[in-house]
């Protein structure tokens, strides 16, 4: 048995069920209201809890970067059973791109000295899918993406990596970073006791300066990208109505053939 400390990256995002808007100047998603845990990260949290449990000890620590000192989404993951959280929140992070986010997350993760880092394959709102591997690179750690199964055996992690045609079996030494898909495990419901306990679990809120990062390398100042304009997506053209005049079936078949689906 090796007690295992796992860090899970948890992105807190505006509730996808609520109406969304863009900030007028920067064209970025408005993140002023309450943020919730990205559903994609629930799988990582569950995986981490199961791995720590299977290892017979160790802790799950959450790491998140979010504006406004937001902890609502973290409380959800703490209620599921994570022990503590590190939140990086700083006005200087406004306008961060994925690399800037990765720098901040990497600096925070380092402090937790994890054996394993778990993130989602991609977030539900930004979905560049680039942040986790950049975190791994910045920390000089191996990374394995698209995990549909994760097991830890002593000092190595074994991953079934989803591919188009099946899966690869990948083994990596620890510490390492793994991104998980939605199929990896079924996230648990938080128990009522867990929800009540979550409010008193420690959330360490840090600024860019606390992490010892140079403010000019993160946020808008360090961003290598800028959203210059946003345009309405072309609306989908209406479909074609096929009126059956005895040849309906044949015309549908012909149409499906043009799509190469049959």
């Amino acid at each position, binding site marked *: 048995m090796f007690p295992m400390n796992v860090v899970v990256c948890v992105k807190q995002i505006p509730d996808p069920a609520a109406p969304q808007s863009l900030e007028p100047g920067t064209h970025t998603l408005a993140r002023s209201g309450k943020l919730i845990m990205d559903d994609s990260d629930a799988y990582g949290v569950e995986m981490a809890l199961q791995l720590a449990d299977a290892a017979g000890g160790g802790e799950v620590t959450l790491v998140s970067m979010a504006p406004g000192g937001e902890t609502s989404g973290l409380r959800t993951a703490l209620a599921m059973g994570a022990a503590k959280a590190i939140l990086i929140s700083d006005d200087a992070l406004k306008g961060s791109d994925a690399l800037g986010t990765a720098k901040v997350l990497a600096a925070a993760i380092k402090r937790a000295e994890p054996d394993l880092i778990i993130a989602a394959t991609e977030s539900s709102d930004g979905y560049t899918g680039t942040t986790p591997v950049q975190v791994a690179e910045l920390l000089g750690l191996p990374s394995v993406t698209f995990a549909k199964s994760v097991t830890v055996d002593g000092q190595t992690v074994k991953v079934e990596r989803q591919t188009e045609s099946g899966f690869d079996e990948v083994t990596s030494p620890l510490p390492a970073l793994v991104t998980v898909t939605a199929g990896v495990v079924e996230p648990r*419901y938080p128990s009522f006791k867990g929800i009540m306990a979550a409010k008193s679990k420690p959330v360490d809120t840090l600024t860019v300066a606390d992490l010892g990062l140079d403010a000019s390398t993160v946020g808008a100042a360090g961003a290598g990208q800028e959203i210059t304009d946003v345009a309405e997506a072309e609306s989908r053209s209406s479909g074609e109505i096929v009126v059956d005049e005895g040849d309906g079936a044949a015309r549908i078949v012909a149409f499906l053939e043009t799509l190469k689906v049959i």
Partner: protein
Amino acid sequence: MFEWSEEQLAIRDAVRRFVDEEIRPKLDDLEHGDLPPYDVLRKLYATFGLDQLARDSFKRQLERKTSGAEPPARAGRGEGSNAAMALIPVIEMCKVTPGMVTALGVSTGLAAGTIMKRGTPAQMERWGLDLLTLDKIGSWAITEPNSGSDALGGMRTTAKRDGDAYILNGNKTYITNGPYADTVVLYAKLDDGSDTDIRHRQVLTFVLDRGLEGFEQSAPFRKMGQHSSPTGELFLTDVVVGRDRLLGETEKESGGGGRASAKDNFVSERAGTAAMALGVIEECLALSIAYAKDRVLWGKPIGEFQLIQLKLANMEVARLNVENLVFRHIEMSAAGRSLSLAEASAMKLYAAQAASAVAMDAVQLFGGNGYMAEYRVEQLARDAKVFQIYAGTDEIQVTHIAKDLLSR
């Protein structure tokens, strides 16, 4: 309190997810296919750790009873948040299946509650724990074919002393969980051979188990609503019960004496009914707002017609009032106070009438769709109607409120 706290909202969201994933897909079987609600309720308990919380609470209650300590007169904030923690699932589940909440409330609230309050430690261990965790299902049986509102006076089920035992005869009706109950808390009139008018004889409380000789449980009744809550009859023919089944193992009011025990429950079940009503009202209002925006007639959404607006406004008034009553109850529990019988009756009377009226208005607002099962408000209207009948009819609430007012 004027709104739910962050933690309470987190509990609400978690329960909503459970309702969406575990209850909605089975709703047709529960409401129209005679699927008993108990396995889903047990899953609810296991999912949220409510079975463990029940075990912890059982231990505390048992310790209190064995040490002879009174329950804390002024409970701390913790007890108040417990009231909220219990009511939030009630409200959320009542948005979809009030019947399931009836089944749950009768088993853990009325049946287990009565045993835990008035049973001996041995009786608490024998029946209380399994009921609190839902390992076993309980009924609470007072109503009879010829006595509902007049349950204590008109009761004809008898318990005849026979040495140290009792012989029970009679029948009970409209008993929630009756068809499936493992454990039944049952009220009967003492027959001690004296010629006291049966109206005025002592009422005793017994605990029965499924399968006792001479004890029969009927199949579920067909009824207007609350289909997720099986309701039935109980028949007792010379059922012999030892003193171990007399609550508290004493005929005194502190134990088996049934009048006080029945009245204890009036307050808690009336407060619980108000929370159930809130769930129905919130759901009907949400569905009605969406429909009023969506349904277009004469070229505009029906929400623009003033007669539709009046319905929505009335629903909102009811929602605010009932929510305030529920918040008041939670605050009072937090302060270690309980509602008086008259207060609980007033709360239940208003909430029950409001839920029925709101749900019927929702049916009206939906037009023909409102009458169709697919749109769900017809089920809520049928389910809400019983709030005005069980746990004391509207008319009986009026008598309890008036009695209190006139005695001042």
